[in-house]
């Protein structure tokens, strides 16, 4: 079992006069489950994972001179599936184990979206009189890479080891399909602007030399 990335935050803030208020939270956890088998001193294995990220920001603001409260929400939902075959050599000495290998991770993004909504509400009547909705739907994204991995593990109990790995390699990302941007503006419940722009990616490839840290729990039998 590997933990390939982890990021979380949970924040709630407000001004002393309570005219500004905001909270944001997200958890981005990327665990993977793998199996490997020793074949002629080489370990051949594979990891699988499913990642779902939720990122939500909510904020509202006003001032004593303003007749309305402005509220904004921003969310960035992402879903991806992950597959990583690997080949490694493992060296065990007393309570330690060293793994050296090559890993070829593939990550396919099923969904990556950005949704931004804002509205203004009258302080007295509580009516919403200006509403703006922006949505960006990204195209399908394939991320593939080749990493050289070096891991060190400590024996916890019998065949159970816990440790960390560091990968150094080249990551590539390719966009294919269309990006859809939509914008809608409403005044007192009546749509005044409704726009959709479709951006076609004829070519979009990028790559870079990268690090890849991983925490891992392994059981050998």
């Amino acid at each position, binding site marked *: 079992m590997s933990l390939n990335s982890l990021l979380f935050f949970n924040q709630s803030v407000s001004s002393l006069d309570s005219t500004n208020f905001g909270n944001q939270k997200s958890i981005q956890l990327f665990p993977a489950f793998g199996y490997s088998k020793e074949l002629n001193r080489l370990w051949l294995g594979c990891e699988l994972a499913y990642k779902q990220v939720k990122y939500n920001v909510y904020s509202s603001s006003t001032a004593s001179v303003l007749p309305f409260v402005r509220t904004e929400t921003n969310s960035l939902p992402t879903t991806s599936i992950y597959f990583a075959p690997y080949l490694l*050599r493992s*060296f065990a000495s007393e309570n330690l184990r060293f793994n*050296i290998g090559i890993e070829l991770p593939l990550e396919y993004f099923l969904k990556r979206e950005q949704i931004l909504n804002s509205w203004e509400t009258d302080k007295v009547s509580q009516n919403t009189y200006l509403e703006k909705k922006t949505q960006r739907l990204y195209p399908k994204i394939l991320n593939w890479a080749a990493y*050289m991995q*070096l891991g060190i593990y400590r024996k916890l109990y019998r065949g159970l080891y816990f440790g960390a790995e*560091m990968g*150094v*390699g*080249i990551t590539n990302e390719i966009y294919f399909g*269309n*990006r859809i941007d939509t914008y809608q503006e409403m005044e007192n419940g009546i749509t005044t602007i409704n726009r959709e*722009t*479709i*951006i*076609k*990616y*004829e*070519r*979009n*490839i*990028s*790559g*870079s*030399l*990268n*690090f890849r840290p991983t925490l891992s729990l392994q059981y050998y039998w």
Partner: protein
Amino acid sequence: MKIRELTLLLVLLVIFASAQGQANRISLIINSFNYQTEHASSQDTLQTEKETNLSVLPSIGYYRTLKSNTGIGCEIGFMHSTTKSTITSKTLDNSYNEIQDRISPYNIFYICPTLFQNYYFSNFQFVTSLIFPIEYVTKHEFEFTRDIDILTNGTNIIDYSKTIEPNNIKFGVYCNFNLNMNIYRKVYLGAQTAIGIDTDMRFGQRTNYKSVTENGVVTTEETAITNFRRDSRGRLKFRPGIVLSYNF
């Protein structure tokens, strides 16, 4: 600056020549790598965007073992990077056309003296080293042009700006860990990770030129020069690399 680098290289070469080596190696290293190629357009073809960039800092190093698997070495490398982007947009009736061009080039001259120790086990070579990378950045420029055609009144406006950044020197001290695997006879392939402190210094002048041209006549033109008397910064940093070595 080039004279200083050449002197340092010469001193290291003299040390190599006088040393009685046991096992030496030549390495090809990728110190940084980034690329991007993008071509996107809106479905109604009113807006298109193209961007390209390739930045690779390869280096070649010679390492000489002096005694007890310890030795000294030096790498030299060069990078030329250019980022180009073009955005074109127009209205449905073709009465308004706009083209935005951005170009940003820079060069890096790279030298890295090294003190190292080798360890061998099974088919692997493990190298721990202290490295002193120096990067000298020149010709760092940003050029921007916006060409607007308003066909309803026959106006052409060209906004142009160019910023020439001062020369920049980056130097650091890193602890480097390099693990290589024997892939064929004396050829090893591996990866390295360095952790250290990097310092960045700018010296000289930044020149910023702006102009506006309307229907071929320059209406606004200005040049601003910023003199960097002191501008240095540093931080703790990682430095990844991919290494191909030949031992002899």
